[in-house]
């Protein structure tokens, strides 16, 4: 079990559409089977193994129940990057957004040097709302149409779909960073979001 990927832990194919109620049912069953609580009388080495298995089941569930984390994991799995080395890659600006971002970055740099005037504030605020909507769209696209494309892809089409998934993930990460930067510049820090950002990818 310890060598299995998260999908096979739950006996699932490498597909992005997952029935979460069924996933939860399987998780509870596996959690019961492997939880250290029920192996207290086991010798230490076996208990350690049970603990490791239990940890794997927990992480696998946490990853697969969330549609975005699920895509992120699939991409890493397909690329053979399930153990992370070093720091996470810095999200790059997607080419489609470059022009727009240039403007925002400029305003942000301005904001760093001095106080924001009311007009700039309003503009940044509006831009942030726009980016938030875009982030939502991007996440919806990742979780729905792109995920469905992966599930329906023939083996030969997979590399292309994988690239599309990766790009969407990078766009999402980038949008989140900029939204947070904007919030910071506007003095409306979003601490919970900031923590999420720090929470790098799941690894195992």
């Amino acid at each position, binding site marked *: 079990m310890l060598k299995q990927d998260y999908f096979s832990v739950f006996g699932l194919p490498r597909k992005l559409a997952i029935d979460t109620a069924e996933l939860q049912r399987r998780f509870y069953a596996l959690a019961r089977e492997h939880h250290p609580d029920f192996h*207290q009388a086991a010798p230490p080495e076996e208990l350690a193994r049970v603990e490791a298995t239990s940890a794997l089941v927990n992480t696998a569930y946490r990853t697969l129940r969330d549609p975005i984390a699920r895509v992120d994991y699939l991409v890493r799995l397909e690329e053979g990057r399930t153990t992370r080395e070093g720091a996470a890659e810095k999200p790059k600006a997607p080419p489609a957004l470059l022009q727009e971002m240039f403007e925002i970055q400029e305003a942000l740099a301005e904001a760093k040097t001095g106080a924001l005037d009311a007009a700039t504030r309003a503009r940044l605020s509006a831009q942030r709302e726009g980016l938030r909507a875009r982030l939502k769209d991007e996440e919806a696209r990742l979780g729905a149409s792109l995920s469905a494309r992966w599930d329906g892809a023939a083996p030969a089409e997979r590399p292309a779909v994988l690239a599309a998934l990766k790009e969407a993930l990078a766009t999402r990460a980038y949008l989140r960073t900029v939204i947070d930067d904007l919030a910071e510049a506007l003095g409306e820090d979003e601490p919970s979001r900031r923590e999420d950002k720090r929470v790098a990818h799941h690894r195992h």
Partner: protein
Amino acid sequence: MSRIIGIDLGTTNSLVAYVDEATGLPRVIPDAEGRPLLPSVVAFTPDGIVVGEAARRQLARRPADTVYSVKRLMGRGHEDVKDEMRFLPFRIVPGEGLVKLAVGGREVTPPEVSAAVLKALKERAERHFGEPIEKAVVTVPAYFNDAQRQATKDAGRIAGLDVVRIVNEPTAASLAYGLQRLSEGVIAVYDLGGGTFDVSILRVKGGVFEVLATNGDTHLGGDDLDRVLALWLLEDIAVRHHAELDRDCVDLARDPEAMQELRLAAEAAKIRLSSEERTTLTIPFAGFTYRRDITRAELERLVEPLVTRTLGPCRRALGDAGLTPADIDEIVLVGGSTRVPLVRRRVQELFGKAPHSQLNPDEVVALGAAVQAHILAGGFTNMLLLDVTPLSLGIESLGGIVNVLIPRNTTIPTSAREMFTTSVDGQTLVDLHVVQGERELVKDCRSLGRFELRIDPMPAGMPKIEVTFLIDANGILQVQAKEQRSGKAASIEVKPTYGLSETEVEQMIEDSFTYAEADVATRMLIEARNEADTVLVHAGRALKQGADLVPAEERAAIEAAVAALRAARGGDDRERIHEATTAVNRATEHLAEVLMDAALKGALGSRRATEILGERT
């Protein structure tokens, strides 16, 4: 499997419970007098250590040697407790790192103080079962960090208990409820005790108790309510009694005994105001008696900010669980401070529904600990608890930034693996700094410790050291490292930032035999002497204040009784001390009444009668 007991090691009160095989229900074990709660107070006396009610009763008389609320100091460093210690009457040993107390002419660590409480409960259970007990499940606030959990485990070892599982208090409470009255659904447990606040959101389904998120504040509880009230009273005393205070050159704030009296009186008044709309505080100080009425509304104005502080963690827990208040099916209240009406109102407002409190909020955590103990012993096989780690775990990376390995609210056990290498040729040591917390910078997080990995020398960048961080079912971190090329396990030296080393724990286990707990006879003698001291202080004050209010022969009778008690107290005869104490009590009964009367009249005289009568209706 041998018997496992469940222990609620509280800031204020501790309890021990077990699951009754016959009924399948958890039960609290009371002491010989039938009291379920053991006050978490430990007195270091010349005759030995005294725990519980007897220690609590000497709080105001021997403030420097009587330790209470030590849970607030568990696993903490000097920096953390600076603010706290201003209000605690015992002395702290100056230094760095782990906090040590100087009490009863020796130095003790918080785990040793907690061990004294655990030992008393262990003995209580041993008397109950008539057999030795070696294993326990002990509860901690869900929001306790690694060091605080480790300190609790150490306390168990010092007390001669193998702590087979650390369980989070709100989760334990949900187990107790789950066994008895909870239906399936999503529940929120709101636990406000003496020193800590926790909130946990759980999904209960088919015997599985899955914690979705937890949050809290390990420095917020009933003690803080007492403190704001006591400080407010202190100001009021300064205003109303400045004449007496100036005359006697007294600074109450610097008088530990007076402050302790004040704190205890404040707590008692706070508790009365949970069931009454108004109450009268009477505190006898050396040169005068302070007396005032206080209403529930006044108390609520004072504690409002503290109560409001609990709502932030509630919202964060909901957010982390991805839920809104409307998604919560039931709310469970735990902890003595949830009896405060304002707390109930605020909780009800936040969640939009009335909370549950059928089970005794004082006992429910201990009952849950017993349930978990029974699960571990193989007794309950259908219940499964899936708890989470409350704080994100990370390692220090370049520039003092935290690299998060395990995010908060991850189901435990959980693990993360990370690869490390060297940056210098021939480097044999890799130093990892592990922290816990939600902030981006290492300096704003809690340092757990340093792990030094030793490896064979190789060119820079060649070693591939795989480090596994495992948070076990207790919420405690274990670290393993392996050099991948050689396949050799790297040796790890752990340097806990705020913990005890293995050798220190061993030493304390030994010490605990040297400084044994006072035996039963000594304990009862100490108790009798304590009682005598209290009565002597009160009688002395009454005589001083009311000398001319009673006839000379009554005064003489009191003086004789007092002299007899002083003589008895000097000896070792518990019975005699007891009788002499009762005699003084009887002799001063009338004088006390007269004094009370005078105080009341004094109050009447200083204000217009209508004002008082008006307030009374």
